[in-house]
C-alpha cells in the first residue's frame, strides 16, 4: 500500500495506448504534470492537476498486477490483459474505446488449408497469453501447450517453434508479412478503465467521480 492512503493512484501503460488515452483524460479534466511528457524523465510517478490523484507509467501487463494488489487504484488496461490475469479484485467499468484490435489464432499459410480445427486434440501455441489460450482451447476439449513469448510471436512458426500462434491483430498486415493467416478469433479487444475493488469500496465518491467523468468523455469522443 502507498504511504498516503487517501491518494488514488492511476496506472497507465507506456506507448501507443498512452497516446490514445491522453485525449480522453484531457476531456475528463485530468492533466499530468509537464514532466510526465518529457522523454528523458527518469521518474515514474507523477502528480496531476488533482491533489488526490497521482499517475504512474508501467508496462501494460503490470497495470493489472498493480491493480490486483491494490498498489494502484485506477488504471488503463486492455481487455486482453484483464482476461489473461482474470483477477477477481479488478473491475473494468468503462470501455475507453481505444486500442481496438482482436485476439486471433493464426498459423502458417502453407498449413492453413490442411488445418481442420475441429479435429485437434493437442496444439502447441506460441503466445503472450497462455492462460487465455489454454482456456479457449480447453473449452472445446483441446489441450494447448503454450510457449510463452513476450513479443515477435509472428516469428515462431517460421523458426519451427510451433505451427500456431495466438496474438493480437489490428489490421493483419504483420501476420501477412510473416506468411501467417488467421484461423479463428478468440476475442475482441479494447482498453478499459480498471478499478481495484477495495479502493472502490473505500473511496466510493472519488472513484465514482472518475468513472462518470471518463464515461462522459468516451461518449463525447464517440459523437
Amino acid at each position, binding site marked *: *500500500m502507498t504511504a498516503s*492512503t487517501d491518494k488514488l493512484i492511476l496506472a497507465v501503460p507506456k506507448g501507443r495506448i498512452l497516446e490514445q488515452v491522453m485525449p480522453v483524460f484531457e476531456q475528463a479534466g485530468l492533466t499530468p504534470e509537464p514532466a510526465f511528457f518529457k522523454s528523458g524523465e527518469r521518474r515514474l510517478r507523477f502528480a496531476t492537476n488533482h491533489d488526490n490523484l497521482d499517475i504512474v507509467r508501467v508496462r501494460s501487463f503490470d497495470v493489472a498486477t498493480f491493480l*490486483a*494488489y*491494490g498498489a494502484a487504484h485506477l488504471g488503463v488496461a486492455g481487455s486482453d490483459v484483464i482476461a489473461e490475469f482474470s*483477477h*477477481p*479484485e479488478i*473491475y*473494468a*467499468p*468503462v*470501455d475507453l474505446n481505444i486500442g481496438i484490435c482482436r485476439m486471433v489464432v493464426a498459423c502458417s499459410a502453407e498449413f492453413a488449408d490442411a488445418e481442420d480445427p475441429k479435429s485437434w486434440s493437442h496444439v502447441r501455441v506460441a503466445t503472450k497469453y497462455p492462460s487465455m489460450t489454454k482456456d479457449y482451447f480447453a473449452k472445446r476439449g483441446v489441450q494447448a*501447450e503454450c*510457449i510463452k513469448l513476450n513479443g515477435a510471436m509472428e516469428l515462431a512458426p517460421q523458426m*519451427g*517453434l510451433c505451427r500456431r500462434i495466438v496474438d493480437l491483430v489490428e489490421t493483419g498486415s504483420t501476420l501477412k508479412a510473416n506468411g501467417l493467416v488467421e484461423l479463428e478469433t478468440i476475442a475482441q479487444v479494447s482498453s*478499459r478503465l480498471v*478499478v481495484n*475493488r*477495495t479502493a*472502490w*469500496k*473505500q473511496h*466510493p*465518491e472519488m472513484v*465514482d467521480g472518475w468513472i462518470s467523468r471518463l*464515461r462522459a468523455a468516451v461518449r463525447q469522443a464517440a459523437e
Partner: protein
Amino acid sequence: MTSSDDFDAENSAATLASIGPDMPASKNVKGGSDKGLLPAGLSDLLAPQAQQDADAVAAVLSCFSQFGYQRIKPPLLEFETSLLGDGPGAALAEQTFRLLDPISRRMMALRSDMTAQIARISGTRLASRPRPLRLAYGGDVMRVVPDVLNPERQLVQAGAEIIGRDDEGAVAEIILAGVLGLQKAGIKDVTLDLGLPHLAEVLLGKELAVMDAAIKQQLFEAIGNRDISALAGLPIAAAQKLADVMTASGASTDALRALCGDLDDGAASKLDSLLKVADTLKKLLPDVAITLDPLDMQGFGYHTSISFSLFAKGLRGAIAKGGAYRTGYDEAAVGISVYMERVLRGLTAPDAPPFVYIPAALGFAVALSYIQRGRHIVFGSEGADEAAEARALGCQFIVREAASQPEPL
C-alpha cells in the same frame, strides 16, 4: 533429432519446472543449502509476530464470546465426503488438500475453511440443541492455491456462526461482533460493504433459465466488471433494472431506497432487508463507513441472501467476509470469517514487555518471586558474563543481588 524436437525437450522441461513441485534445486543452488526452504505459500512466524498473531486471534474470539458465541474445536482432517459435501463445503472442493487415510483407506480432506465443519457439527452432534445456536471457532486452514492477495497457503481463520436464523437482526449481530472484535484486536478505520449475491438472479427471474449461454456469460462479465454500458446493450429485459441497481450502489442508501418501489416484490424485499441492516448498523457504528454494493458476487460462493465484507484503511482486500447461507443440513445460518493474516498486516509491532535478567547464581527462587509478581524474566546461564549475556538476550533490567531492585542495563 531435428532441431524442432530439440526445442520440444527443452520446452517441456521448462514447463515442468515452472508448474511442478519444488524439486531438489541442485542446478540452481550452487554451494548453498535449501534445508531452510519451505513449500510455496508457507512460512515461519517468528517473534514478536507469532505472539501478536495469537493475541489478535484471542482478542477477536473473546469478543465473539462476549456476544454469547460458544467456542468449538473441530479436527484438522475429515473424510472428504463429509467435509466437502453439501452447503458451504461444496464450494471449497477445489481449494482443499486431500490425503489417503491408511487406516480406513478413505480419502480425507484437510480443512480449507472451518465454516463447513461448524455446519456439520451443528447438524449432527448439536442437532438437538435449541436454536439459534451461536458457535465460534479459531484455527489454521490450508488452501491448495492461494488467492491473489494472500500468498499464504496456511491461513488462520477466526469466525462465528448463528445457526437457525438468517434474518436482518442475525446479520447485523454478526457484523457488529466482527467489527468490535477487529477493533479490539487493534484494527482502526474499519469499513463495511454490504451485498446481495443473488439479487441478479432474482431480477432476471424466469429469463435466466432460457437465456442463451453466450449472452449469459456477457451478462455476468458485465456485472462482474461493473460495466453499465455493456450491460445496457444486452438483449435482456432486466438489463435496465440491473443497471439502475449498479448506478444506485455506493455510500448512500437513498438511491437504493428510491429504487425499491420500481422492483417486483421478491427483489424489493431483498433490497429492503439489506437497507434495514445498513440502517441498524449506521446507528450503532457511527465511525464505520458503510457502502452498499448489492450486485457484488465475488467470493460469496455459498451465501444465499445478504453478504458482507469488512475492509480497513491501508489493508488490501477484505479482512473479514460473511453472510447468510444454508447449512448442508438445510438450516438457515449467518456466519463471519476473519482472515487473521490480513488483520496482522494492519497492526503495529507490539511493545515487548521489559525483561529482567536473573543471574544463575541467584537461583530459581529469586526468579520465581519475579514471575509471581507478573514480571518477564530471563534466567542466566551458569558461568556466563552476566551483563554481557543479559544484553545479548535483549534484557532491559538486571538483578545484581538477591535482595536488590532490578537495575536498568
